[in-house]
């Protein structure tokens, strides 16, 4: 029964990792850009939720209604300016530029809001949970985050397969030159993909801020978890990302069960094992492999 609880907690945690990772997966799948500032942008979204929403007189729980659209717009503009400029140079430059952004964002947050921990206040929801037995407890918040993750992935899947814009995004992702020859404006398509990715990042960042304390440097470790989820699940597969996130979450919970010190380590070990044994991941194509 204890192990069942460990697995359930792992699945719940995995939902959060999948939500965090789907933006990273989309950015790589379409733009072929690894955004090293991914985690820091999520942290910025959480800071915006904490420091902006009191001025708007809405509960912080609903702050995502404001923050997510803002981040979508930021994503589009950021892509059309800075990121497109670096893509035009080479993939190497996108890494340097997004890493530069990551360090600058972290230190700006440090200067503006100090290193103190913050949380997105959600009242009593944080303590509410469901106890089917005496050992198993399921926090409503974690369940909601998992549901949001599954919902976002399903919507994204529907959007990519059923809408005209979605088909354009897949066309550009598969073969940019051919899509361009057919009249697709790939820069605009890239912008839309980046906008969606940024919107999911904002959602993940706010969820993170609700679940735990965050500080300016929280972005890095979350980028690592998102990245591990993507690689374990298989690069280029949206549902693979969910499975990867869950596998990572379960591994971390198993590690934490033995010793809290082992939580992150167990996840890293699973990642390195997958890399050694099945480098294309559980559901992946062999695109990102050397």
């Amino acid at each position, binding site marked *: 029964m204890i192990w069942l609880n460990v697995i359930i907690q792992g699945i719940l945690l995995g939902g959060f990792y999948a939500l965090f990772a789907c933006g990273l997966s989309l950015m790589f799948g379409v733009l072929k850009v690894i955004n090293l500032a991914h985690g820091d942008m999520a942290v910025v979204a959480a800071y915006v939720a904490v420091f902006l929403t009191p001025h708007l007189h809405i509960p912080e729980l609903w702050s995502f209604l404001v923050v997510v659209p803002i981040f979508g717009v930021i994503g589009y503009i950021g892509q059309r300016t800075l990121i497109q400029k670096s893509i035009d140079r080479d*993939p190497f430059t*996108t*890494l340097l530029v997004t890493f530069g952004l990551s360090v600058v964002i972290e230190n700006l947050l440090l200067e503006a809001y100090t290193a103190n921990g913050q949380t997105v206040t959600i009242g009593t929801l944080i303590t509410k949970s469901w106890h089917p037995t005496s050992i198993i407890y399921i926090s409503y918040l974690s369940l909601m985050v998992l549901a949001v993750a599954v919902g976002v992935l399903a919507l994204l899947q529907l959007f990519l397969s059923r809408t005209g814009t979605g088909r354009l995004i897949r066309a550009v992702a598969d073969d940019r030159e051919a899509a361009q020859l057919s009249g697709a404006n790939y820069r605009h398509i890239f912008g839309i993909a980046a906008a969606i990715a940024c919107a999911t990042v904002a959602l993940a960042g706010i969820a993170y801020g609700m679940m735990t304390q965050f500080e300016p440097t929280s972005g890095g470790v979350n980028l690592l978890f998102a*990245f*591990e989820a993507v690689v374990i699940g298989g690069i280029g597969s949206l549902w693979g990302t969910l499975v990867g996130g869950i596998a990572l979450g379960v591994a971390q919970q198993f590690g934490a069960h033995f010793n809290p010190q082992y939580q992150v380590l167990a996840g890293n070990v699973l990642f*390195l094992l997958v*890399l050694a044994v099945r480098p294309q991941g559980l559901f992946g194509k062999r695109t990102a492999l*050397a």
Partner: protein
Amino acid sequence: MSQSIEGALDRHGLITVRRSTHSPIYTLVGAVILVVLLSAAPWMVPAQVASTLMNFFILVIMATMWNLLAGYAGMVSIGQQAFVGLGAYATLYLALKGMNPFVTVPFAALSCAVLAYPVTYLLFRLRGGYFSIATWVVADTAMLIIGTIAVLGGGTGRLMPGLQNLSPSETAHYSYLATWIVALVVVVGTYYLLRSRLGLVLASIRDNEVAARSAGANVRSARRIVFIIAAAGCGAAGAVLAISQPFIQPTNEFNLQWAAEMLFVSMIGGLGTIEGPIVGSIIFFVLQQTLQQEGAWYLIIFGTFATVIALWQPQGLWGAFRDRFHTELLPVGHWVDRTDGSVKVPKN
């Protein structure tokens, strides 16, 4: 190697090929003066200045290694702090076993090289940005594992033994000299490495990887060698870091900030040149010393500057200077002249 290139091109009698844009004797004289001055520095300058110089050398070592990785072999590692940390902890471990901390430095570098070898087989399965984040995972894993080892101080850290029987000024002088010697070995070693056959392969990968492959260069093995050398160099930097700041702590030795500094310094100075990381380190220290009362602002300004450079001036400051004035201090390539001397085309 240079002999054969010059011979091959010279046969046509139209062009001449030279290593250097000016007589190498000037560089040699300048280098000797610099080495003598910097070796004598701890006895001539205030302790504060010597300690700043020491941190400067550590940054030069790391940036030179990072530049080999990214500037020549095209590998953007954001996990080099793994080897800085492992080098520091190798020194701590050997010192705990009773070895003189100053003697441990080459052993720390060697153990990092040995550890890096199997790691390449994992990391080289990923490319581009996935390789980058995977290096970070490796660094994170190394930090977490070290943090569980109680004899090395666990997560809270431990004081380096073996330095307490020296007087403070002796410690300061010796650790300055150790750092300076490591920096000198790393920079001079890189210079000769880049003039060797491997250096030619690396320059060809830097300029055009596909062309290098089709000309028969073994790109993967060249990358592996560079990764191992960079691990050893960063390990040596970690070892001298552990001696100069003798309280060893996982979060400090394995700090991502090392990777950030190596990257920014190399980019600003100029990737793919030996002088670039040194120029970048000088700019970094001037900025850091000027803004040291202002908290994290030096990193914000430096990071923004590096991003701007990456977008608009990717050869970096030294690269721009070299292209404008056709000059190199440490020539590793070849300059091709028409025999009438009218046009100069830099060629590596």
